[in-house]
């Protein structure tokens, strides 16, 4: 429960004024009904805790899908001064570069309708899913280090995809500054076996259909049209990213006392950006980010292969093109305007997506006239959204927006709520075919376990920190 003093700025934006140890205010993007739900959790207290960390600039921000996380809330955005600020593994999350990518096709719903079950079953067979699933290839440590340095580019060089995939990936699927030598043997060992796997929990691959277009002009630039078949992929850096986060938390918690910081929660462990510990984490985090991009690139390749084989068509007829790939668990050094001055800051996005506007140099050339594509997955029974970045996001949220629906039920609550029901049949009645691995995955991931993604998206659209482009409805889902 939060006793924070909350002031209304407008219908979609709220402020927690600076009190106590807070160095900056908290700013929350939410509707009044979402805010009521958020108040019931500890996440607003977490927004305030983040606001107290050294070097934070402007505000500790929360997106409408904010929920309780470890240390930092999920759905949180915080930027730190490069000279006086900290970097924190807890501000990025365990699944470093967990993210989404959306592929478009030349197909419409009628082209796949009669083969959908076959398609979903084949995807389920070709894409390794589930707890601790291991990939089709086992890398040598030497080769794995190349993956960490090159990201999606490594995958494309190995034949998993096309050069245009790279152009359509955030940071071209490879952040610079990776140093594989700072990564532990444990992380390398976990990562070696899991490259090219989807994972479990809320990770999925979803065949969808464009259901509604909100902005025709932007949709045209993105190559989206009504009734088009799409594929949405949600996965991350697997055990590798977890181990990097874990190792860094241990190392930072040992030396956090040297900073003279009294942390309200050990999971907020951090180090100065410009310190050996901080630099080591940043280099290791980039390794994990690159691993995740290589991972999603490989899954993309197998998805293309599966579509072609099941539907008996060639790549030209399928035309499965990567629209964009975004990460939503990351820390990045970016240039932003703070208090009227342009400066470099380290932006932590934990369960938040980058949302850069038209004209920004980081936006791929083909989209630069309209802005960066943003992918917001919903739960498996409702819808996902494609949004576009805006100038308002640059001035208000360090070019950031929401990342998804956010849970409202714990996994055990969801299991209780779904007891005696056939979730698979309920989804089938809605026209969604689903295949999954884990014995309780489907029960834990029931649609009502999540916030209404449409409500979350409405907030960021109305607040102007991104704009709605299209809505995609799921027709086939595979989960771990």
């Amino acid at each position, binding site marked *: 429960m939060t006793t924070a003093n909350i002031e209304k700025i407008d219908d979609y934006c709220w402020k927690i004024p600076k009190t106590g140890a807070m160095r900056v205010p908290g700013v929350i993007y939410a509707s009044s009904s979402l805010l009521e739900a958020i108040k019931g959790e500890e996440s607003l207290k977490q927004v305030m805790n983040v606001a107290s960390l050294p070097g934070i600039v402007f505000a500790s921000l929360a997106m409408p899908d904010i929920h309780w996380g470890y240390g930092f809330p999920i759905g949180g955005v915080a930027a730190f001064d490069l000279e006086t600020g900290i970097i924190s593994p807890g501000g990025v999350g365990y699944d470093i570069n967990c993210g989404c990518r959306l592929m478009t096709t030349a197909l419409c719903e009628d082209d796949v309708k009669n083969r959908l079950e076959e398609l979903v079953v084949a995807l389920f067979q070709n894409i390794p899913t589930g707890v*601790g699933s291991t990939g089709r290839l086992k890398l040598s440590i030497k080769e794995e280090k190349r993956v960490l340095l090159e990201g999606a580019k490594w995958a494309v060089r190995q034949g998993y995809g096309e050069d245009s995939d790279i152009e359509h990936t955030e940071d071209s699927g490879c952040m610079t500054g990776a140093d594989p030598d700072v990564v532990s043997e444990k992380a390398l060992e976990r990562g070696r076996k899991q490259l090219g796997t989807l994972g479990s929990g809320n990770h999925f691959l979803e065949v969808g259909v464009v259901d509604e277009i909100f902005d025709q002009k932007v949709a045209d630039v993105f190559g989206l049209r009504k009734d088009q078949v799409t594929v949405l992929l949600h996965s991350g850096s697997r055990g590798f990213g977890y181990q990097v986060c874990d190792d860094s938390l241990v190392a930072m918690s040992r030396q956090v006392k040297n900073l003279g910081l009294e942390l309200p929660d050990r999971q907020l462990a951090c180090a100065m950006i410009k310190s050996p510990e901080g630099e080591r984490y940043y280099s290791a985090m980039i390794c994990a980010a690159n691993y995740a991009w290589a991972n999603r690139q490989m899954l993309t390749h197998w998805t293309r292969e599966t579509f072609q084989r099941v539907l008996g068509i060639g790549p030209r007829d399928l035309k499965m093109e990567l629209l964009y790939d975004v990460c939503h668990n990351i820390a990045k050094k970016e240039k932003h305007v703070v208090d009227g001055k342009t400066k470099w800051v380290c932006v932590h996005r934990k369960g938040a997506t980058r949302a850069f506007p038209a004209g920004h140099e980081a936006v791929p050339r083909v989209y630069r006239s309209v802005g960066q594509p943003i992918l917001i997955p919903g739960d498996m029974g409702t819808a996902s959204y494609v949004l576009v970045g805006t100038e308002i996001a640059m001035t208000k949220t360090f070019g950031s927006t929401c990342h998804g629906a956010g849970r409202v039920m714990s996994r055990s609550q969801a299991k209780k709520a779904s007891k005696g029901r056939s979730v698979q049949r309920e989804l089938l009645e809605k026209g969604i075919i689903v295949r999954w691995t*884990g014995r309780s995955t489907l029960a834990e991931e029931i649609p009502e376990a999540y916030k209404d993604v449409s409500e979350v998206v409405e907030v960021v659209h109305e607040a102007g920190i991104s704009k709605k482009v299209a809505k995609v409805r799921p027709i086939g889902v595979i989960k771990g």
Partner: protein
Amino acid sequence: MLAIFYIIILMKVLSHYRVIDHTADLGIEVFGQDPVSLFENAAEALFDLITDLNRIEPAESRTVLVCGQDWADLMVNWLRELLYMWSAEEKLLGEARLKKLEENRLSATLYLESYTPEKHVIKTEIKAVTYHQIRVWPSSSGWKAQIIFDT
């Protein structure tokens, strides 16, 4: 007879910890008469969440050394070490016996079995042991710990 045996084991396990429900994740509160049993019970609780302990027949053992800055840090590092055995090496823990325990270090013998999909069940995927709201403390009835897992 077998059923009664299983119930006794189940009661033994359940009496050592309880699950704390949280929106995104899973927490436990563990009990022990003393620090040694607290750490052993925490290990057992972790693997009781992951799998059906009754199906584990340890086939190998190994000794581990774990360090920490204090009881809470030691607890997190101890469970991290055990979770690594599962997530990286696919070994399930049947039993942990502490050989030595101080506030900043421990040594223990682990009794393990390699995961076999046909034999073992995986109930919950625990992805990480977090520092979030970690607590280890002596209470009037013994020792207690609160641990939150990422699932």
